[in-house]
Structures are given as structure tokens and as C-alpha cells.
């Protein structure tokens, strides 16, 4: 399914991640997924939350540069090859993956993957049409 991901610009300095996390904590925001891409000078924190518009406003008010980007969110089985068949499907369908982050959860909930792709709707439809897509519509 398509979800709205929040990206935040972070300076590459000590304490900047702690600061943005404490802003989110103060407002009771729960992170469902998160990653930080970094370069020598700056980082981009990307996250999935349950109320993206609200979180965007919170971060904006705290003087962060924020962007909302639609991405694909998938739930996959936490077994070898779980991610492979999805990525293969997209690759065969001519979809480029720009970045991906994933994490496993405990128990039987499987793993969660966030994908930024070039042709979002097309990629989403491919995944929806995939047979045996038991996790369809129930991610997150």
C-alpha cells in the first residue's frame, strides 16, 4: 500500500537526532519505521508515522525542513527470500527502487519494508495483483 513518508533535513552535528526525536516524543508521536541517510555534512531522516500531516505540522513548527513523500509500505514474511520475490516483480516490471529500509518485528508479524520507487502507482498495482499476497491491505 501507499503511505505518506515524512523526511526531515538534519545537520550532521552531535545531538541533532536526539533533538528531533525528543520533539516527536513531546508530542507523543510513535515511529512505525525510521531510517537516516547521511553524508559528510547532513542527513535525511525518513520515517513512517500514523498521522503524517499532524507530524509534518509539529516538525515544521519546530523549524525543521520537512517533506512528505508517498512511498510503498509492504509487510513480508520474515523468511529467506521474503523480500526477493517482491523486488524481482518490480524489477521485471521496469520499476526502479530509489531507496529501501526494512526491519523485522518479533513473533509472527513478519518484516516491514519501505520502498521509494520511481513509478509509484504502477508498482503498487503490481504488488496488489501478486497472487498469494496475503499481507495485501493490512500492512502497518
Amino acid at each position: 500500500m501507499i503511505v505518506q513518508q515524512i523526511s526531515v533535513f538534519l545537520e550532521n552535528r552531535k545531538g541533532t537526532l536526539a533533538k528531533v526525536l525528543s520533539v516527536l516524543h513531546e508530542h507523543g508521536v510513535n515511529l512505525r519505521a525510521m531510517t537516516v541517510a547521511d553524508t559528510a555534512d547532513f542527513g535525511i531522516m525518513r520515517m513512517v508515522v500514523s498521522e503524517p500531516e499532524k507530524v509534518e505540522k509539529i516538525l515544521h513548527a519546530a523549524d525543521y525542513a520537512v517533506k512528505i513523500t508517498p512511498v510503498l509500505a509492504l509487510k513480508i514474511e520474515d523468511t529467506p527470500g521474503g523480500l526477493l520475490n517482491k523486488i524481482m516483480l518490480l524489477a521485471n516490471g521496469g520499476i526502479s527502487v530509489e531507496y529501501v529500509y526494512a526491519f523485522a518485528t518479533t513473533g509472527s508479524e513478519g518484516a516491514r519494508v519501505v520502498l521509494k520507487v520511481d513509478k509509484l502507482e504502477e508498482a503498487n498495482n503490481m504488488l496488489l495483483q501478486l497472487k498469494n499476497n496475503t499481507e495485501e491491505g493490512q500492512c502497518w
Partner: protein
Amino acid sequence: MYWNKPIETMERNHMIELQTSRLKATVERVYRQVPFYRSKMQAEGLLPADITTLEDIKKLPFVIKQDMRDNYPYGLFAVPLTEIVRIHASSGTTGKPTVVGYTKRDLDIWAEVMARAFSYSGASKTSCIQIAYGYGLFTGGLGAHYGAELLGASVIPISTGNTARQIMLMKDFGTTVLACTPSYALVIAETIREMGLELSEFSLKAGIFGAEPWSENMRREIEKRLGIKALDIYGLSEIIGPGVACDCLCQNGLHISEDHFYPEIINPLTGEVLPDGEKGELVITTITKEGMPLVRYRTRDLTFLDRSVCDCGRTLVRMGRIMGRSDDMLIIRGVNVFPSQVESVLLSIGNTSPHYQLIVDREDNLDILTVLVEINEEMFTDEVKGMEELERKIKAALSSVLQISAKVRLVNPKSLERSEGKSKRVIDNRKL
């Protein structure tokens, strides 16, 4: 629309004649009346008779703001206080205020040049002019006021503040011309939008904006959001106040009322007079003022002059939009760097001008320039490669404009230190 056609369209040789006789009279008067000028000229071995042409002005020493402080409050006045009918003063944030005194005739001249400025915008006695500059010791309010009255317009002396009321009167009174600072014009535009009013409910046609530096971009923004022509007006209280120069509707430089204020452009480092078209510091000599004439006053404002005839038909010399302040100038690895150059680079890359800061360090005897740029939402993309590309573009544009390489660091919105709403532009860590 001309206010004073003979002057505004005067041929160059006639203007030079007029300026020469007025300059000579001014030098004669300050030598006689003001001990400060007399001793400065004597120190150079100069007599008033040594000034016979406009070229000779180069022989005279410059006057700087500190001279006004040193002669606080009335030391530079050229007439007894009985002749002074008005006193204005600067805010004096960096010491004693600078004080200026006007005779009756000075006030008439001021109204004349301000009336010209309003008429450049197309305003006339049928206009309704709302003056939203501060009235008081600051020259903005009263300066614009008397000019608008001389023009014969209906004047609304509302001064600054209470934006909702400004807007109500602007709408109900049918204001056609707004005079205020450009930043306040944007506040008014924003408030109109928030109040849910339509531009069609207003009669606004033009705005005369000044008293603070602004950019072409801001001009376009104001014009779009208020549906008007936005004109830049230049002035400084030391010289007279607003009205020294103003855009015409061609918006291709500000016409200087050079029959009263004789301009020169100098190299701020050497004091050498630069030819037309070259960028440098504006120096002004008041050639008609009685109360407090200033000879070769260094404004610290950076611009250039253009003596070609404007499309509007006026021959009055034009100055470019103020590009910065010469006291902001940095010398980095022997190269002159102005913060305004950095601003123009940033403007050329994004659609808005982000806040920025120049940091100069010296490592192993080499100057290092780092430019911090506040990222805004318009510049921010979710992708690392997009952001790295932005950094690279800024860096490349900076090195081509500044002629030296600079490091670029993107920083969080509103993270740079600001004083009174303006970013602190330069931090020089070099111990020289």
C-alpha cells in the same frame, strides 16, 4: 508623468553647469560657516576658490558618519539654530544618534524631491496616498507626507502598525499609492489574504517602498501579491531623508535628484572615483542644503551610476538598486567579497532568498570561507543526491561569482543567529 519637467529632462551640459555653481556655493558656505569643514580643508591646503569644476570635488576630503557623532549634536550645522525649523535624528543603535537640522528652504526642497518621487509612480493630485512609514524622529513618515501634500494628493498619515486598520482604511478610503517599507508591504499583503479580502476591493496602483534593502525578487512578490507597481525609493536622513532617488515606472534604476544631491561612486578601499557603470560606494554632496550641508558624505551603500537617458525620457542620472554595504565587505585571500554577492547567487538558484551566513577562518595562513545556507522547504528534497546536487550547484555558482572557492554547508531553518529579524551575515574568526 513629470513633476518638474525642466529639471527632470535637463540636458547634461546644463545640469553640469547648475551643479557646478551650486557646488561652488556650498563649498564656499561650509568653509565660512562650519569649523569642521574649514579645518579639514585647511589641513589639505585647500581654499573654496580651488573648487571651480565638478572634477575638482575629488580634492575635497570625505565626511563619514563618525564625523557626525564627533560633532554631536549641532556641530555640523551651517546656520544658527534660529534658522532651523525641524530636527530629525537616527535611532542611534551604535552610539549617539546622528542629528540633522532643516531650514524652511530645506523642507521645501525635501517636499519637492519627494513630490517628484511620487509622480514617478504615476501619482498626481487625484491620488490617495497612504503613508505607513513611521512619523517622528525618523525621516520616513514626515518626509513622504510633505512630498505627497505638495503633489496635491489626498494624504492618509496613518504611520506604522495596526495592520488590520491600515487595510480597512486602504479599502474604504480608496488608497491608490502606498508608502512603507517593503517588508511591511508584504505583511499587509499577507494580512489581506488572511482577512479573506479580494484585491478587487482595493484601488491600489503603486507602492513607494524603501528605508531598507530589498531585492528584485521581493519586488516581484509584492507586485504579484498586491497587484501594483512596486517602486524602490532611496534616501538617508544624513542627506535629507527619503527622496534622494526613486525608481520610475521603467524600474531600471533610481533617478537621483542630482540638482540637489551630487553623486559619485568610489572604490571603498582607496577612495578613488570610479567611472559610470562600475560598482562601488555611493558618495553624496548636498549642493542646495542650508541647515546641514554634507560634502562628499560616504553613504556606505554600494551601487553604480548610469547617465544614459531613461526610457521615461528623464535625463536624471540613475543609480542601481543598493547591492549591499561597503562596511560588510570582506577581503578573503585578497579578493573583495560582499555578502550581497552570496545573496544574489542564492537567489539565482532557488525562488526565494534563504538566510545565509559567511564564516571566515584562517587555517595555516590560508583564509577559508564557509557559507552556511538555511535550508527551506522549497529547497529540501527527500533525496540525498538531490541535496548534494544543490550543495554542488551553490558551490559552483559561488566560486564563479566570488572568484574564490567557498565551502557550502546546509543548515536547519531558522538556525542562524538573527538580530532584529535580520541574519547576522558575517562572522570573521580571523585574528589579523
